[in-house]
């Protein structure tokens, strides 16, 4: 068995003296792991940094085996982000989230495309809002999508500023006013588009984080990835006021 595909390195762990087990998000095969002989060596270590886009060749005798990866870097996203704590935090948070949330060997091309968009955008203006959209897409792909089209109570499509934590559906300002303290806030950029400030991104991540924790991590008795929490802390410190 063998195949060649492009994938983002999500996580690596040491295996023996010199090898690593790398987990990748590939376009055709979803989250896929493989052994990299010599992955700890100084020559190969830069290749297998989280966030890097790698062209990999996977080989195994049987499809159910772990198999081995050989790879070469197509885009060194990790190196681009190393100097900036926020960019590095966003990259780590995205990798940790996808690694923890997606099942193995199940293709999710939409998530892959979202990941491409995020990694390409990191370092450019407004990139954190793409992480929010990636998380929304992740919920959608896993069957827990949010309905932000119209108000769950009145059906109106204007003035949507809340999301119900029970139904994951949008609620308008008018209908939600009596329950405002129990509803989640919906940042405008997720409804009408446009640019998002840091506060909007924080609201968006709190919204998606609530549902990702409830539907994806909590059933496995796991918390949200600490890397995501650290990224939120960095964002909060940069938020005005």
């Amino acid at each position, binding site marked *: 068995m063998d195949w060649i595909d492009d994938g983002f390195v999500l*996580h690596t*762990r040491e295996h023996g*003296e010199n090898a690593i087990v790398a987990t990748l998000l590939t376009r055709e095969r979803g989250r896929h792991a493989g052994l990299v002989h010599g992955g700890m060596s100084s020559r190969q*270590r*830069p*290749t297998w*940094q*989280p*966030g*890097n886009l790698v062209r990999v060749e996977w080989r195994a005798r049987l499809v159910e085996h772990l198999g081995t990866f050989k790879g070469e*870097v197509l*885009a*060194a996203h*990790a*190196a*681009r*982000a*190393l*100097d900036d*704590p926020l960019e*590095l*935090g966003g*990259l*780590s948070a995205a*990798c*940790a989230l996808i*690694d923890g949330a997606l099942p193995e060997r199940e293709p999710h091309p939409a998530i892959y495309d979202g990941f491409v968009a995020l990694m390409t955008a990191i370092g450019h203006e407004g990139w954190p809002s793409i992480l929010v959209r990636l998380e929304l897409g992740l919920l959608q792909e896993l069957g827990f999508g949010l309905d932000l089209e119209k108000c769950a109570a009145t059906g109106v499509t204007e003035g949507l500023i809340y999301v119900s934590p029970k139904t994951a559906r949008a609620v308008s300002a008018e209908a939600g006013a009596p329950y405002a303290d129990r509803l989640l806030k919906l940042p405008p950029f997720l409804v009408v588009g446009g640019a998002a400030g840091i506060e909007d991104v924080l609201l968006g991540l709190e919204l998606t984080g609530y549902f990702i924790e409830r539907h994806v991590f909590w059933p496995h008795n796991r918390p949200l*990835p*600490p*890397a995501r929490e*650290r990224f939120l802390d960095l964002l909060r410190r940069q938020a005005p006021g």
Partner: protein
Amino acid sequence: MTGPEIDRLIQLLAKLPGLGPRSARRAALHLLKKREALMTPLAQAIGRAAEAIRTCSVCGNLDTTDPCAVCADTRRDAALICVVEDVADLWALERGRVFAGGYHVLGGTLSALDGVGPEDLNIAGLMRRARNGVVREVILATNATVDGQTTAHYLADRLAEIEGIKVSRLAHGVPVGGELDYLDEGTLAAALKARRAM
């Protein structure tokens, strides 16, 4: 084929880095052939080292004295601390003889995926040392990996709370003797980003 003592010796040698069962067998045979010249002195040296070596309570280095020889050396600049991930990194810097300050060994890096948090590293000790009024500069010499730099940014944030401390980090870029043609894209990008006027 061999007695349990020799089997045990081979098993233990095979656990050393760089040795597998076959090379461990060769090493054991070599030791057995040079029992007086090598095996007994080696066993004694290992025994003595195991008894004497301790972790330095100041920097986390491994030495036979506490504080270690580096921390006890009064010729070193106590105002400079170089933070490294591991004792191996400290030894590498010492081999180069390019740094004459103190060290601080973290004992690893923050790793969200592997569940290593700040409380698992020797960060509290670093903060105590940085607050002692003597330290002027902390050099973050963590590896140029995602985990290494995440740790460096975290430490820079924590150290910013302390007034009068300069925080710096090692440069990333082209190694001495390196050819651009053979460098990976990430190193080239880092080298370009950190270019200097001439």
